[in-house]
């Protein structure tokens, strides 16, 4: 089964084509947020060099979020457009879950952190063994301090990975046992999205039609969101 996967959830953007679990090719650009200009040519080029026709793709995969608001929309809209013509099945995966696949088959506990700005991170913890990746926590939006109190409870060495990893690493005030992932494993990768999508497909998770793909922004609860309305505002209006 040929899978075409896209990740544009944060600063880097990447496209990968895989045959089941074998990666056939991957293009990766980390040159600032220019996804609206780079993504479409990257898809066209990777298919061209691999000599694969877009009609030969059996499954489209994309990271649904959390991540950059604009980035997620670019990635999902692109996949929708590609899959729409033949109504090819699609799978959306959590960005955090896909990053955990950078450590596939390594025995590690990884804490995926993406910078959500304003001292917050999108985060999830995964236990990775030789045969599978087990989710320990849901995808959440939380402060770095709250995340550390959770890491403390785990009482084991945790690898920090993702674009918020360095930020978290520098704020480790309690000197907990955390390590930074190697540079080549820090980023969101379309190849990992493809792996996560294949795992999800093999687990029997239903594929969906392109129109059903929706971004998962992972925002704050309604109560917190309303905090934004300042009392002064009512006077002004």
């Amino acid at each position: 089964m040929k899978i075409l996967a896209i990740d544009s959830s944060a600063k880097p953007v990447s496209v990968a084509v895989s045959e089941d679990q074998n990666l056939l090719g991957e293009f990766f650009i980390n040159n600032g947020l220019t996804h609206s200009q780079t993504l479409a040519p990257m898809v066209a080029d990777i298919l061209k060099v691999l000599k694969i026709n877009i009609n030969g793709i059996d499954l489209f995969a994309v990271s649904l979020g959390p991540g950059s608001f604009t980035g997620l929309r670019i990635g999902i809209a692109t996949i929708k457009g590609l899959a729409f013509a033949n109504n090819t099945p699609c799978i959306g995966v959590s960005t955090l879950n896909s990053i955990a696949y950078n450590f596939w088959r390594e025995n590690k506990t990884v804490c995926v952190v993406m910078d959500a700005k304003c001292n917050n991170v999108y985060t999830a913890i995964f236990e990775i063994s030789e045969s599978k990746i087990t989710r320990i926590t849901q995808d959440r939006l939380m402060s770095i301090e709250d995340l550390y109190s959770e890491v403390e409870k785990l009482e084991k060495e945790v690898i920090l990975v993702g674009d918020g990893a360095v930020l978290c690493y520098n704020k480790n005030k309690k000197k907990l046992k955390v390590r930074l992932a190697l540079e080549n494993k820090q980023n969101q990768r379309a190849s990992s999205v493809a792996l996560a999508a294949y795992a999800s497909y093999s687990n029997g998770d239903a594929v969906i039609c392109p129109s059903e793909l929706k971004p998962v922004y992972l925002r704050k609860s309604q109560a917190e969101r309303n905090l934004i309305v300042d009392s002064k505002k009512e006077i002004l209006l």
Partner: protein
Amino acid sequence: MLRIISNSCKQTEKIGKNFAHKLFGTEIIALFGDLGVGKTTFTKGICLGLDIKTNVCSPTFSIINEYDGRHKVYHFDMYRVKNMDDLYSTGFFDYIGNGIIIIEWSENIEKILPQNSIKIFIEYGNCENQRIFNFEGVNMNENFSD
């Protein structure tokens, strides 16, 4: 907190222009102040100081204007931004760290402004064209009105 008094539109622009020379390129500048207090004039001054040639106007309807100069500038008007959903859908968080962000009507998003933001409160002075600028969160001790 640094306090500067402006006595004219021209002077407000000048304060902005001089302030611009202090910027490195990724600052978040939050402007507070009532209608007609000079938020846009001050922004024009900053843009002038950054060699931005395009016309600078308040993005009340577009919410974001983008300018290219010595640094990239993202000019926000939060007047119509009423809640977190509104703010999120402007892509605000994607812009942080990618250029200078200037925000008009920061009152509307005060509670979630990043901690390192430079806050500038503009008030009416005693006479018609007088305005009082209060700078917070930036280390300045020069006279910007010169």
